[in-house]
C-alpha cells in the first residue's frame, strides 16, 4: 500500500520543475533524496543545489502545492545538506533535455583539479556540437551555470556546471 502511494508521489514529483530551468524536473536534477510517509503526513527530503539558490524556496512551495492539491493535508519539506548535491545525480534523461533546450549538460572531467587556474573545460556547443568553444565566465545567470561561446557557429551558450 505504502509502496504504491510512494510510487504515485514520485510520479507527481516528476511534474514539479526547476523554475530557473523549466525543462528539468526535480527528479531529473537529482535533488529529491527521500519520500517518507507516516499516517497522513508526507515528508519530502530535498537537497539544495547551491547554498544560496533562490529556486529552492520556490521548489519547496511547488512540491507542497502539488501534494496538497492531491489531497495530502500535512506536507513537510525537509532540507538535507549532506551528502552535498552533485551533478552526478542528474538523470541521463535530464542531460538530454538540457542539451535540447540549448544548455550544455555537465560532463565530469577526470582531471578536475580544485586549485587549477585558467583551466578551460572542453565543452561541446549544444547547437552545432563543435568542440571549438571558449569559456566566457565561470559564473552565469544562475548559480548552476557558466557562460561559453562557440567559436564556430559564434553563438553564446550556457553550460550547466559540473558540481
Amino acid at each position, binding site marked *: 500500500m505504502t509502496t504504491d502511494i510512494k510510487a504515485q508521489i514520485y510520479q507527481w514529483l516528476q511534474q514539479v520543475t526547476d523554475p530557473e530551468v523549466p525543462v528539468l524536473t526535480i527528479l531529473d536534477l537529482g535533488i529529491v533524496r527521500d519520500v517518507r510517509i507516516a499516517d497522513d503526513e508526507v515528508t519530502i527530503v530535498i537537497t539544495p543545489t*547551491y547554498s*544560496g539558490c*533562490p529556486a529552492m524556496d520556490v521548489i519547496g512551495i511547488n512540491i507542497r502545492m502539488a501534494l496538497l492539491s492531491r489531497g495530502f493535508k500535512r506536507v513537510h519539506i525537509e532540507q538535507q545538506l*549532506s551528502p552535498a548535491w552533485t551533478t552526478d545525480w542528474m538523470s541521463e534523461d535530464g542531460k538530454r533535455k538540457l542539451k535540447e533546450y540549448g544548455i550544455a549538460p555537465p560532463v565530469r572531467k577526470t582531471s578536475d583539479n580544485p586549485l587549477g*587556474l585558467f583551466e578551460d573545460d572542453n565543452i561541446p556547443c549544444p547547437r552545432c556540437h563543435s568542440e571549438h568553444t571558449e569559456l566566457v565566465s565561470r*559564473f552565469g545567470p544562475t548559480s548552476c551555470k557558466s557562460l561559453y561561446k562557440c567559436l564556430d557557429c559564434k553563438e553564446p551558450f550556457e553550460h550547466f556546471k559540473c558540481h
Partner: protein
Amino acid sequence: MTNQPVNQSTNRLLYTLQIADNALILGHRISEWCGHGPILEQDIALTNTALDHLGQARSLYQHAADMFNALPADEQKTLFSSTALQNKITKGENIDEDDLAYLRDGWDFRNALLAEQPNKDWAYTVVRSFLYDTFNFYFYAALQNSKDVVLAAVAEKSLKEVTYHLRWSSEWMIRLGDGTDESKARVQEALDSYWAYTGELFETTVVDKTALADGIGVDIAAIKTQWQQRVNTVLEEATLTLPTNTWMHSGGKECRHSEHLGYILAEMQFMQRAYPDMEW
C-alpha cells in the same frame, strides 16, 4: 562578555556565529558591486559569489538559532545586547536566522575585520576576496571533519562553492599583477594595505580554542601553513611582492570592529529595524 570562557553549547553557538558573520558581512560587501561591475560577466560573477556567501550564512544562522532556542532563558539574556533581540527573548519567543542577521548590533558581530573592509576599487575587492577565499577554502576543507554534523554538512556543501570563488579571485590576482604597469601598481597597493587584516584570520580566540578542544572547530594554526603556501604560489605567478609588514589589525572576532561595520548594518538592517517583522 566576549572573552569569558562559556559552557560548551554556548561556545558552539558563538563559534557558528563567527563563521556565519564572516559569510554574511563579506557577502554583503560583495553584493554592493551588483549593478556596478566593470563588465556584465564580472558583475554576475560577484553577484553569484555574494549569493553563495548569503546562502551559507543562512544555513549557519539557522543552526545557531536552533542552538540559541535550546538554551535556558537566563543564559539567552546574557548573549546579545540589542534591545530588539532582548524584547523577543523577554517575551519568550523563539528566534530565527533573520533575527540573528537583522537584530544584532555591531558589538554582537564576530566577523574578522577583513570581511567588512570597503570595496574601494576593483583591485581592493579582488585582493580582499583572494586573501579570504584562500583562508575559507582550507577552513571549510578542515571543518568537514567537525563533530558537529550541521557544521560538517555546511562545510561539505560550501567547499564546492568556495572553490569557484578561489579560482575567480586567484585568476584576477594574476591578471592584474601580471597585467599592465597601472594594474600591477594598484593591486600591489591593495595587497600591502589589506595584508594587515590577514593576521586576525589565524588568531586563536577563547571561542576557537574551546571549539577545537570540543572537536567541533578547526585548528586554524594548522591551516595557516597551507594558506601561506598557496598565497605565495599565486603571488609569484602574479609577479607581485609578498608584503613584509608584520603589524596586524585585530578585534573583529572578539566583537571590536572598524567604523565600517556600522554603516553596513545601518543599510542591511534598516527595513527590519524600521518595520519589525516585515516580510516581502
